């Protein structure tokens, strides 16, 4: 499978974006830090699961259809 290192490195941007988006979004919804961090973790998890599901779907489509 052709998967150059540069292409793989692109995905390293994902965790950065997920963390920043979750933390900033949560900080605009809550005032105290424990609530912000809890909500950020939940949003990070939701976004990661969503992206993994999309990735699996695309992989299945590419591989078997």
């Amino acid at each position, binding site marked *: 499978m052709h998967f150059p290192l540069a292409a793989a490195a692109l995905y390293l*941007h994902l965790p950065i*974006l997920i963390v*920043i988006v979750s*933390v*900033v*979004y949560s*900080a605009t*919804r*809550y*005032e105290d830090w424990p609530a912000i961090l809890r909500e950020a973790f939940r949003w990070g998890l939701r976004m990661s699961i969503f992206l993994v599901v999309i990735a699996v779907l695309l992989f299945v489509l590419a591989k078997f259809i």
Partner: protein
Amino acid sequence: MTSGTVTNPPPEPRLYSPLAAFLSYLVPGLGQISQGRIGKGVLFIVCLYGLFFCGMAMGGWQNVYIAQTAKDGTEEPAWENNSLHLPKPVANLWNRLHFVGQFWIGAAAWPAIWQYNDLPVPSEQTSPFLHKFQRAPTPKEENEINEAYGKVPDIAWVYTVIAGVLNILVIYDALAGPALAAAPDPAKRPAAPAAQEAAPV
């Protein structure tokens, strides 16, 4: 009322702070800092400026710009790249929507407006960086950036747009406080009249 149930007091009306909102538009988090919410302000400034400037650096400092692509009825060819016959600045934004998101980062995106209006900038010989800073690249420059960095410029503008759009939430936080205010502490809640009435004498 003698039901014995404790009723919650009505929520306090939100106090709006337009000045803090404007400060948070200028610099992300500045409004929160002016309100004494230092930690959140610093979080916003670090995260959003970090995202925005990293994105600009990855894009060769030329991915936050308004491109001169549209023509109006007075130019030849008339209405080129402007099939909706919009005013020229609106059509230019419509043709490259990135700046509509990037604009909300505040003062950090103003050089793009400066460059779009062809206002004076240092010459290329004096300061090549400032000369090109947030200026729309020529097709040749765009090709060079894409050839040199591959897909990174595409990720780069995503960074800048996400930073700008997130700052809209930060501006609202400065204007009206957090979207979901914490529930009042029951220990600090004043005793409700109903509870006092129900208590045995």
